């Protein structure tokens, strides 16, 4: 194949940008769902603490 290096470089740029385009939103969604999970756990812990029997010292 003539101009092999140029052709390879062009297709590598194309593949790299598409890979970035695929990975970035997936990572962002994963991070947001993780944050949502942590927030839900924190709120559940806070509500169970507020339901503690009278006389118990708050933590």
């Amino acid at each position: 194949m003539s101009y092999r290096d140029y052709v390879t470089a062009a297709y590598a740029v194309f593949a790299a940008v598409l890979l970035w385009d695929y990975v970035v939103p997936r990572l962002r969604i994963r991070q947001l769902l993780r944050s949502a999970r942590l927030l839900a756990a924190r709120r559940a812990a806070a509500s169970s603490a507020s339901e503690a029997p009278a006389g118990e010292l708050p933590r």
Partner: protein
Amino acid sequence: MNPVVRWFHQLGSPPYFDRFAARWAPWAYGIGLLVMAWGIWQGLFVAPADYQQGDSFRILYVHVPSAWMSLAVFGLMAAYAAAALVWRIKLCEILAMACAPIGAGFTLITLATGSIWGKPMWGTWWDWDPRLTTELILLFLYLGVIGLYHAIDDRRAAARAAGLLAIVGVALLPVIRYSVDWWNSLHQGQTISLLGESKMDPSMLPPLWAMVIGTHVWFIGSLLARARADNLWRESGKDWVRKLGQVPQ
């Protein structure tokens, strides 16, 4: 109510859109990737070499579809931004802003692959030619939209400001398209036509059309995924997002 109209209204609901995007984005990515894989295979190993350019012409199979996408995505972004400004549809703001990084990516591919092709064919990596220069301005416009969207804390105000920039920037699209006709340009004129007869040999066309279709379908997947991420971010703290966080993805 008409089922299509009802579906359109449902799609404006953030939880419904999240389910829709989560379901269809992987399909669009997968189909787009398969079609592009076929196009790349045909373009690299089956299509005959050009009688003048040799194998360097194979770069056009990634360059031309990306260039078309860079223009089409900007037009779509401006259309979503206009709809968001006129009708105050939050989903349109999200979709408009999701278009920007994808369009910027395709513009970057266009400039980089054009430059790589230009070195052996024109003898230079870059020339301040009207087509190249206007495409570079398009990249700066995309970066401007992205930067403006992230520079303002209020998401809705940010989307409106960035959307306005996108609407104004649409004026650049015909300049890019017709730059090769209006000015003396090093860049070649129109070779491939969607409706009329193309100047390329028919044996070279199937991989190109496959790449054009593949990049469009890929774009749908990417748009859904990015819009889903932005939608989750804006809605973080709402009950439906917290419940979603408890479901293993």
